[in-house]
């Protein structure tokens, strides 16, 4: 029986390197044919902001890779609506298509998965 995997992003980009390595894991899972569900909660929602412009020396603009998620058939991408609200953000500020859920519904999605890893 295949086990399902949830990858939770809860930290902001640039300041810490969690985002890039979390994304790498999600893509690897998809590559290995394992279904993966992505969550963006708390400061993790900042990762998805449009118009990010890291200075060139900062290296890889990994947020550009988010658009690759659909090519990898990763379509289950959930964002915490309350985390957006607390940061004065809206779904339209984000660079990819996501499903924004109130906490209770997001928790229901989390509860269905076998393994949860957080970055």
């Amino acid at each position, binding site marked *: 029986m295949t086990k399902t995997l949830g990858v*939770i992003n*809860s930290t902001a980009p640039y300041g810490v390197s969690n985002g890039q390595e979390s994304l790498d894991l999600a893509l690897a899972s998809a590559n290995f044919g394992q279904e993966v569900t992505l969550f963006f*909660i*708390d400061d993790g929602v900042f990762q998805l902001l449009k118009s990010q412009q890291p200075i060139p020396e900062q290296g890889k603009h990994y947020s550009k890779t988010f658009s690759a998620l659909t090519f990898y058939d990763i379509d289950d991408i959930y964002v*915490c609506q*309350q985390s957006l609200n607390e940061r004065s953000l809206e779904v339209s500020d984000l660079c990819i298509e996501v499903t924004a859920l109130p*906490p*209770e519904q*997001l*928790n*229901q999605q*989390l*509860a269905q*998965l*076998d*393994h*949860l890893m*957080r970055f």
Partner: protein
Amino acid sequence: MTLHIVSTSPFGTTLFEGVFQRCSKNDGIMLIQDGVYALNHVEVYRQLKELNLSLGIACFALEDDVVARANQVKSAGVDSELIRCISMEDFVVLTLDFKATISW
């Protein structure tokens, strides 16, 4: 049913607020490392109590980490029914009592 493993101080991070938001009925909270300072945090402790009553959230603390930090000294007011100090082996068993774990 998820076991939330919390390892950071409630005084230094806002992590507990996020964890509380992620709690569903009958989830559990396991305090390890600096997470055991929740015993000292008046507001976080109050919320743990509330979640226990409203959603049946059980709360545990890793005994070695509590003892290392001399945290038991000040936890006389802490309800040992609400927060159970458990061993590392108990922690292992606990992860199997829940469907999954999230390490915060």
